C-alpha cells in the first residue's frame, strides 16, 4: 500500500477503498470533497451518499466475484 501514488483496494463483498494521491470528479467535472485521506466508494449501487459507501451493501447481501 504505497501512498505516493493512488491505490484502489477491492474489498470483497464491499466498497472500493481509495488511498494516496487521488481526485474524485463529479459529472460536471467539479472535484468532490473526499473529507478524509482514505475513502470508500460505493460498489453495490445502493448507497445514499454516493459516490461514497454507507454500509448498505451489508444489508442487501451484495456479493463480489473474485
Amino acid at each position, binding site marked *: *500500500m504505497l501512498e505516493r501514488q493512488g491505490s484502489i*483496494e477491492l*474489498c*470483497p*463483498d*464491499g*466498497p472500493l*477503498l481509495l488511498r494516496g494521491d487521488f481526485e474524485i470528479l463529479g459529472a460536471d467535472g467539479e472535484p468532490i470533497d473526499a*473529507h*478524509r*485521506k*482514505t*475513502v*470508500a466508494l460505493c460498489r453495490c449501487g445502493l448507497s*445514499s*451518499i454516493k459516490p*461514497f*459507501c*454507507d*454500509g*448498505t451493501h*451489508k*444489508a442487501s447481501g451484495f456479493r463480489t466475484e473474485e
Partner: protein
Amino acid sequence: MRLPEARGNASDALFTLLSRSERHARGSGGAIAEAVAGAEDVLTDDDLQVALFVLYELHYRGIDGVEDAWEWHPELLAIRALIEAAFEARLREVVPRPPRPEPTRRAVADALFELTADTGGPSLSRFVARQADESQLREFLIQRSIYQLKEADPHAWAIPRLEGVAKAALVEIEADEYGGGDPARMHAAIFAQTMRGLGLDDSYGAYVDQVPAITLASANMMSLFGLHRRLRGAIVGHLAAFEMTSSIPNKLYGNGFRRNGFGEDVTWYFDEHVEADAVHEQIAARHLAGGLIEAEPELLDDVLFGASACLTIDGIVGERILAAWTTGQSSLRQQVTA
C-alpha cells in the same frame, strides 16, 4: 473532569483517598475488596463501576483537585487490579464465544462481518429514527457522552503494542477519528458540537453522575482492554465490532435528529460516522483484526472476545435505554434539567 459522586462504600473510600495528597496514601483497599466480594454483578454495580471509571480517568485527562501522581500509585493500581479481575471474569462469563475462523485475514474479516450483521430485532437506532422525542434525544447524547467525548482514545493505547499491517491500519483509523490533523473535525469535537446544539453541557465528564453503571461499564471495558497489553487482541476486536456496527445505525440516529427539526450542525456527527465508519469497518476487519491475527494467530480468541464483548455490553446498554423509554421512564439515574 470533576470527581463524580460516590455510589457506595468502595467509591466513597476511594474518592476520600484521592482528595488527599498521594504522599499520604492510607488504605481504601479494604472497602474495595469488600465491595468486590459482595458485588452481585460487577457489570451493573454502580459503586464499583464509578470507582473503576475514576481510576481509569487518572490515565486520560485526570480529575479536578486530584494529584496527577496518583495515576501510578501502587495502592491505586492494586485497587484497580481487584476491580478489573472481577470485571474481566464477569465479562468472560457473559460474553458469548463466536465460532473460530481460520487465522487468515479474509476468514477473520468474514467472521467479524457475520458476527456484527444486523439481526433486525428491536434497536435503539430504529427507535431514535422513528419515535424518540427531544428529551429522549438529549438523554441519548448524555448516555453517549461518557465515551464519545473521548472517542477513539481507549483504542489509541494499542498503537505502540502492534506492528506492521495491524499498526498501520489502527493509525489510519485513529488519524481519521482525530480529524486528520484538523481539531474541528475530531470526532469528539463534532460530538461536543451536537451536545451544544441540544443545550447540553459538553464539558468532559459533565454527566457521569447521571448515567447508570452499565454505561460506565461500556466505557470501562474499553479502558480495560486498551490499558493492558495482554488484552491488545480484545481492544482490536472491540474497535472492529464498534466500527462495523456504526454506519447504518448512525444514519438512523441522524434521521431521528432531523425528524425533530435539528439542522446540520447537530446531525454532522452522525452523517460523518455514516461515511467514515464505512471506511473504518473495512480497514478494521481486514487489516487491523485480520492483519493482527496473521501476525499473532494466538490472539484470535481475544479478538473474538473483544468484538463479542462490544456487541454484548453495548447491546445491554441499548436494551436498557429502550426498556426505560418504552415504559415512559428516563434511562438516567437522575433527570437532567436542561
